[in-house]
């Protein structure tokens, strides 16, 4: 009796394996990688101007008492164009937005801004994703809320849609305290 039970163990093991594997197949493959830099100070890097239309950006000068957004975008990134109207709306509401253009060229950024509007106060060029690595950011577009002390308070991953505006405004308000 005991012996015959033991004989079933490999089959049971195989079935467990099958169950785990089939559950794994249905899981979402791409995971969103959140930055571990939330709550930490903004890494200070001097970036050259990405455009002739806005001044260069040094992330060392972000602790000036008032919160702001740091938008990570690129002229070659399609969702970045899709979120441009929302950023313009935020800028019209008085939100200060700085930007980093990833792996970009000045003439492309200029063309992008002329076409989709320029809600940015300063735009730095991150030609080799350096600031992105420092920020723990994994793609474009992404938007960080930075408080008046230069601490990163929130990370929005992906495009900012009209439905995200309230969250962004709330996070900015929270960053004021």
């Amino acid at each position: 009796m005991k012996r015959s039970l033991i004989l079933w163990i490999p089959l049971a093991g195989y079935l467990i394996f099958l169950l785990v594997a089939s559950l794994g197949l249905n899981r979402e493959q791409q995971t969103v990688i959140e930055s571990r830099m939330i709550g930490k100070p903004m890494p200070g890097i001097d970036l050259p101007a990405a455009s002739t239309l806005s001044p260069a950006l040094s992330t060392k000068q972000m602790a000036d008492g008032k919160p702001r957004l740091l938008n990570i975008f690129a002229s070659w990134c399609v969702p970045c164009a899709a979120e441009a109207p929302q950023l313009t709306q935020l800028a019209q509401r008085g939100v200060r937005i700085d930007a980093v253009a990833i792996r970009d060229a000045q003439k492309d950024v200029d063309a992008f801004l002329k076409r989709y509007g320029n809600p940015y106060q300063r735009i730095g060029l991150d030609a080799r994703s350096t600031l992105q690595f420092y920020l723990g950011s994994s793609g474009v577009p992404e938007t960080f809320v930075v408080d008046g002390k230069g601490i990163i308070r929130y990370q929005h991953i992906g495009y900012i849609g009209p439905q995200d505006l309230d969250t962004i405004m709330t996070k900015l308000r929270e960053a004021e305290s």
Partner: protein
Amino acid sequence: MRRLLPLMLVCAAPAFAQTALPPAPYADRQLEDPAQEAKATALMHTIRCLTCQSQSIADSNASMASDMRSEIRERIKRGEEPEHIRAWLIERYGDWISYKPTAEPILWPLWAAPALLLGAGGVLAWKRIRHKRKGSA
């Protein structure tokens, strides 16, 4: 259609978003010192690509992966230790970015499994051998 457009853009972009910029200096060029290059390559094979998540940055053609390869090679060239670079990346992206298993409690079963299996196998074999001997005696 119009309303769907932003959604479609979001879905479409990550796969095709590429840049016109030339790759970073050490993205696809080896370091001059073979020992340093070996260190860098070993590390790059255990760092996960952020864009193509099933590949290491050594295997991926994503522009972010090539930037990261260059970053790693330049840091190694400056004399930084591979494990220091790994720690630096984990600090920013979490354990997720490293393919090298850590000694975190969640992985203890993984580390213990070989020992447990070997132990179980040993006990089984020992019992069998003893059984056989008794039988033959």
